[in-house]
């Protein structure tokens, strides 16, 4: 993984650049993933890579180029490539300037043990999980990933920042007979704190819930959804409407509704890179320091997240949520939290006369983005609740539901929250008991 010395290469290269403004970004990774299925490790890999981006700006013409050659010569060539693109571009009248971010910034969330965690220890954890599952005649599939990332950003206005992050991620699907299955997922920064035995036991216990899965009719149900399912919805909401670009283009469900109530009073969604459970990188791909953003506060639409470009258009300041220069999504939150409530999961189940317990959703896709309507499936741990108890597994069902309406119908929210990783995001989210949730036969 590339260290802080890359900033020296960047500094020298920027001095030689003929562009009016020049920005260089390097994201470097040392990545390992052990993947298992059918109780065997079937894929096991490591990778060492660095991605470099250059933004070269001539007046209001912007050129962006990317490569994975971090040598001084490679960086110089990249600036040339970005400059050639810029000189052939039209003006972008909305572009104002790159951002000057003063001083270095302290980075949390990096643990050497995670970076150095050996393949043999990942395999040993998998072997233990498989052995406990096999003893119950179950089959395991999953992943155990350890990785470290560094991010360096420098520009011709004087920004020069470097930070490191590490993470582990763990997913597990345990399958039993007759389609019964269970799922567990977790993540963190310090692999030394990862308790794989208890995390994996959750999935094993679900696959052991007795009974033949029963088929239910389509209808509106009271559901208790686990943090994984809550995170599935949260990620889709973020994609649809938490970023400054979707707000600017009026494609967000929050467009024109800032300050208005859009979901339940008990729903508070924040982007909080500094939450101790999340410890995200402290600055974004423009080098701008991140700050906490209250996106929805007690059901009322608050503010979106911004990079410098969309902040200028919105007449506000960047919140430190720029993605890499060549992305097309605009600014995006990657460290989201939903506030916990007062309840325990047991209280949610005990208070439910008739309902469905859902572990996670699968293959969500949009049906009507402005109404936050999605379709998808339940998967890997869907159970019937009768008279305050889980009574057995059910056949997975199709979800056809507005996500904001679902959050608006959240009768109970748990105090317990789990850290759920999905794609590049970490989300710290609770369980929810939701009424009038639309499910149909798959």
């Amino acid at each position, binding site marked *: 993984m590339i260290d802080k010395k890359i900033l020296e290469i960047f500094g020298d290269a920027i001095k030689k650049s003929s562009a009016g403004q020049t920005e260089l970004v390097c994201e470097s990774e040392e990545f390992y993933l052990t993947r298992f299925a059918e109780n065997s490790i079937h894929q096991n890999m490591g990778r*060492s890579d660095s991605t470099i981006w250059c933004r070269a700006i001539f007046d209001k013409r912007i050129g962006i180029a990317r490569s994975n050659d971090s040598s001084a010569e490679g960086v110089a060539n990249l600036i040339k490539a970005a400059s050639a693109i810029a000189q052939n571009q039209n003006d972008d009248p909305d572009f104002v300037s790159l951002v000057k971010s003063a001083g270095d910034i302290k980075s949390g969330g990096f643990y050497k043990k995670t970076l150095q965690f050996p393949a043999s220890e990942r395999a040993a954890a998998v072997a233990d999980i498989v052995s406990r599952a096999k003893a119950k005649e179950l089959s395991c599939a999953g992943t155990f990933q350890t990785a470290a990332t560094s991010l360096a950003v420098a520009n011709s206005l004087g920004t020069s920042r470097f930070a490191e992050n590490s993470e582990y991620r763990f997913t597990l699907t345990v399958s039993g007979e007759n389609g019964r299955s269970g799922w567990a997922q977790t993540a963190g920064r310090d692999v030394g704190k990862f308790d794989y035995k208890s995390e994996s036991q959750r999935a094993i216990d679900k696959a052991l819930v007795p009974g033949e899965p029963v088929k239910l009719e389509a209808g509106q149900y009271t559901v208790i959804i686990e943090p994984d399912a809550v995170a599935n919805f949260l990620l889709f909401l973020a994609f649809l409407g938490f970023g400054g670009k979707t707000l600017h283009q009026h494609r967000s469900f929050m467009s024109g509704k800032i300050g208005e109530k859009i979901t339940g009073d008990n729903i508070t969604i924040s982007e909080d890179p500094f939450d101790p459970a999340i410890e995200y990188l402290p600055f974004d791909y423009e080098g701008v320091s991140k700050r906490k953003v209250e996106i929805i506060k007690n059901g009322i639409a608050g503010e979106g997240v911004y990079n410098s470009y969309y902040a200028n258009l919105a007449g506000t300041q960047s919140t430190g949520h720029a993605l890499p220069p060549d992305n097309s999504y605009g600014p995006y939150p990657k460290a989201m939290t939903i506030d916990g409530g007062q309840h325990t999961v047991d209280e949610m189940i005990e208070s439910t006369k008739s309902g469905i317990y859902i572990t996670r959703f699968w293959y969500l896709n949009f049906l009507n983005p*402005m109404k936050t309507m999605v379709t998808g499936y339940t998967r890997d741990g869907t159970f019937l609740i009768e008279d305050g108890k889980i009574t057995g597994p059910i056949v997975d069902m199709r979800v056809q539901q507005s996500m904001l309406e679902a959050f608006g119908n959240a009768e109970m929210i748990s105090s317990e929250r789990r850290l759920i990783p999905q794609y590049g995001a970490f989300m710290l989210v609770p369980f929810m008991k939701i009424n009038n949730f639309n499910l149909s036969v798959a």
Partner: protein
Amino acid sequence: MADIEKIAKIAVEKAVSLGAEYADCRYVELENESLSFSNGSPESVNSSLDKGFGVRVIKNGAWGFFGSSLLTENEAVRAAEKAVEIGKASASIVQAPVTLTPVDSHKEDFVSGFKTDPFKIDLKDKLGFLENLDNLMARNEALNTRDSHIDFRKTISFLLTSGGTVVNQKIIHSGVGIELGISKSRRERATRSFPQNGGQYETKGYELLSEIDFSDAIPRLTDEVMALLEAPQCPSLETNLLLEGSVVGLVIHELIGHPLELDRVFGSERNFSGTSFATTDQLDKLQYGSSIINAVSDPTHPYGLGSFGFDDEGVKSSSVDLIKDGILTGYLSSRETANRIDRKSSGAMRGDSWGNIPLVRMTNINLLAGDKSFDELLASAGDGIYMSTISSWSPSDDRSSFEFGCEIAWEIKDGKLGQVYKNPTFSGRSVDFWNSVTAMGNESMWKVWGTPNCGKGQPGQNARTGQGASPILVSNVKVGG
């Protein structure tokens, strides 16, 4: 430039010297250029170059892999050592040692067909092409969202295996697409895309851009957007459903391609993409579709996005039957998975870059054409619904059921198109769906639709696949809106 052949040789020899039973080294260089235009202005021009190598080994009967972007001889040694170390760790928890079906070794070069290398065209000409598309869309002032994009990719790869294969490949892809629409209010938008949602991608050069008739399509799409603004929701009913070719392409992708990936059938994707209803005990038995359903995996197709000369294990490309006369007859497979059913590899192992392990992926999954004209399909439908252009897809994890959404639908009444409907969807069970196909469009409407963003694997990989299709008529399908 680094001596790639030397680096690969060092890596493979080092792995073998460390006791690997098998080793290969794959160098991949990906050059991408993508340009987009939005509402009269260039939105983005992105260019990227990514290169590196990956060493894959079998050590003590188990897989290990390590990839690096550092192209040096020392790094080749380190990568081989890492791959062997990882393979050793894998071996501590395998139920049976990996064995590979035999394969001929090849020393060949492959270059995909193209007339004009898109990377030799001036940026100004490319932006001019997009500006022209934008001008065509801007002729109707009512359209307030106009987006267009073009994408090009050049892949140069080199594979060296301990079995003696040495393969060089150069493959060029081009893609182009538009989306136009009207935002009626902050809550209501109508959009149409062309040639399909996300654009059309083919194994071709810059010539692809002039082969697609945008000037003919844009006025029609504009009329359709206007009609969608006033259209009612698609009604919920069970009816005859006629699907336009690009829709069929994605249905093939989700309900034939993915379920017939043999690694998935064996459970390799149980934790992520899912499993498959098309289990191996049903091979040569399952009535997958009606008797007019014939599907092949064909990476030899001249322009399909899933075309190549050799897969990433060095298996030479060939056409393989998947479904014959409606019966399941084959799978997409690798050397390892094919060996488990005593068959030859179909040659479908593909990695999306140097830094990822090849997986069993789709190539071009082609549903062979039928014999009906579009008017004959409409006449056969009698009364029903016609849907065009996928907008949403959601298959179950074992691919046994599905729901798809489309951009637009028309009522079919007495064999003629009538009322436009918005937000149409169709859903059902996969095997029931394919067994209900009663007629298929002829060769004149058949083409290979490109999908440039097929996700699979952990870490996630993004494959480029093709699906050959013409319109199909399906009876008794549940539709809604």
